[in-house]
């Protein structure tokens, strides 16, 4: 259904601003949890940078009361907008700090923030206070969040869940016009990037995506076989050498080196908790370690640096897809 609406939006892109205003009360099913909105919500508290940036892209900042859970600098385009919205916490906010804003809507990008075991609060806790808490389907549809550190995907991540998230957030906020325009734009860019990558026609190209490591030498956190980076790789015709269904499994360097992927993607981030958060430290490790330095990708300089935020489900995913395509085109043949 959502897909149909979105396809229609794409076809009608030139005739924008035709979407009907939201009819309230609006009810929707959020990964099995029923939500009801009696009117366009105010005092929105958004938990998670991706969610926050989607709301900024919908120009909903005037109805936002707070943000939390930041990983990197806000997108430069929204720097000024972000100044006007209170940042409740850099990391996870406390339940009371959120509730205290009397929010009409609390969307989040991660189930482990507001879910069965939510660290901010469970869905029941928010429901008890009459606050609709919403988890983006990118992190709860087809995913078991009680298995594995970041949950385990029951099916491959589908970009449609991102468009569904934007569509639903826009509908809740009564901003469907802007939502449709945003989705149409992202879809067009996604298709263009995929076309460009397929035109490169890389033969049996494989990849590993290294996010970080608890410390430099231990088994690294890498992108699982069904998560968001895996979707990007698949869309662009790269085979992920990691097959675990966990979102970010730890896999030994021995296994990675033996798989000898043709490309290594490493994450760049502002976070500096572990030494391996720094992408320069990752590069230095790959070149120095007696085993990884022998990998084809390291010897031939096939290392792509990708923004960590592009690996979260949000509008930056498409930026990441484009960046990955650009980098693939520049790789030594």
């Amino acid at each position: 259904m959502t897909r149909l609406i979105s396809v229609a939006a794409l076809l009608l892109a030139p005739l924008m601003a035709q979407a009907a205003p939201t009819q309230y009360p609006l009810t929707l099913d959020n990964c099995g949890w029923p939500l009801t909105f009696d009117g366009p919500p105010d005092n929105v508290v958004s938990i998670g940078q991706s969610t926050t940036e989607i709301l900024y892209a919908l120009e909903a900042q005037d109805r936002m009361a707070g943000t939390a859970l930041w990983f990197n600098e806000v997108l430069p385009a929204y720097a000024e907008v972000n100044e006007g919205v209170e940042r409740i916490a850099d990391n996870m906010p406390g339940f009371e700090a959120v509730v205290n804003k009397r929010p009409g809507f609390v969307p989040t990008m991660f189930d482990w923030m507001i879910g069965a075991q939510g660290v901010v609060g469970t869905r029941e806790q928010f429901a008890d206070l009459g606050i609709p808490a919403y988890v983006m389907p990118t992190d709860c549809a087809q995913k078991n969040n009680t298995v594995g550190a970041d949950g385990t995907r029951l099916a491959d991540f589908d970009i449609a869940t991102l468009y569904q998230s934007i569509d639903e957030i826009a509908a809740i906020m009564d901003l469907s016009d802007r939502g449709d325009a945003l989705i149409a734009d992202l879809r067009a860019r996604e298709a263009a990037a995929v076309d460009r990558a397929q035109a490169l026609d890389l033969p049996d190209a494989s990849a590993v995506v290294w996010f970080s490591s608890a410390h430099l030498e231990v088994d690294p956190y890498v992108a699982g076989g069904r998560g968001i980076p895996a979707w990007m790789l698949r869309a662009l015709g790269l085979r992920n050498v990691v097959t675990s269904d966990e979102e970010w499994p730890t896999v030994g360097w021995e296994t990675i080196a033996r798989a000898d992927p043709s490309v290594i993607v490493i994450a760049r981030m502002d976070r500096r908790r572990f030494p391996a958060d720094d992408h320069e430290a990752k590069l230095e490790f790959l070149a120095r370690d007696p085993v990884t330095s022998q990998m084809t990708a390291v010897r031939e300089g096939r290392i792509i640096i990708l923004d960590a935020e592009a690996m979260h489900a949000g509008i930056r995913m498409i930026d990441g897809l484009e960046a990955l395509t650009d980098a693939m085109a520049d790789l030594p043949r």
Partner: protein
Amino acid sequence: MSVATASPPLTRQGLRAARQAAWVAAVLAAALLAGICIGETPISVTTVLQVLANRLWGADHALDAIEAGIIWSYRLPRTLVAGACGAGLAICGLVLQSLLRNALADPWLLGISAGASTGAVLVTVAGVGGGMVAMSGGALMGALTAFALVAGLARLSGGGPGARGAGQIVLAGIAGSQLFNALTSFVIAKSASAEQARGLMFWLLGNLSGVRWPDVHLAVPAALIALVVVAAHARSLDAFAFGAESAASLGVPVRRVQVVLIGAAAMAAAVMVSITGAIGFVGLVVPHAARLLVGVRHGRLVPASALIGAVFLIGADILSRVLIPGQVLPIGVVTALVGAPIFAVILIRHRGAS
């Protein structure tokens, strides 16, 4: 179980010692070889032997650089450290159980594990040291600080020769462990995101995946020093079997022996925990298993504990790599998961012995 058996004639004893030494060396070599041959990915035994020949005797086999690197730079140091760590923790547990005459004593009793965790958390989460101190450095400092605190508290509260003194160090250890565990939780709750806490949990359960050659240069000497120091005091440890007062009456310098042995044991355990994280079960159970297998005399008990500890941890590490294909389990999980049933079997089979 008979404690004092008559000594056999000297020549026969010498022969038996030589045979035992050869046996120990063979078991250890077999364990090491297994640790190098079995890993996350299959590498043939031939390749393993060729890599060892290249490195040790300058042979010139043409080999895949990645496979050679995995064997020489990942698996060999990892196996050596697993062995050293198992031996060190087992000796530490043995010393504490014998000196304190407490069957439940283990390395973590002295607050070493709790202190190491606090040190690691302070470095990685709270950023103490400004990135100049490695997590293992922080863990070592934390372990030694906690042990110093526990030892000081035990002394101030009247710990010393005698049954009461042994009780005091146990109580001081409990207080110290609780304090440092609380500090760890406090630091995590105060400044870590859930994501960091997870990375730390992985380490707190014990992890050998990041072990490289520099760790070998630290762990193996630490284990050897502890082994030599404790083995040299085997007779004194025998005397402690009947309590510190009896040991004193037998002419054992009780205070000095306690300080030297507990100090050596604590140092070894602190070094191990700083490299691999807190690996439970080994220090507690291996000395008991050794006692059931070779008897209570420390002349045999000390080397037996070290050997069993080394082989057990190497075996546990192998299992941690192969139990779930494509994923490495925390070794602390495997030691208890595999060790507990093995220990149960030993207990049952020796029920008549004591």
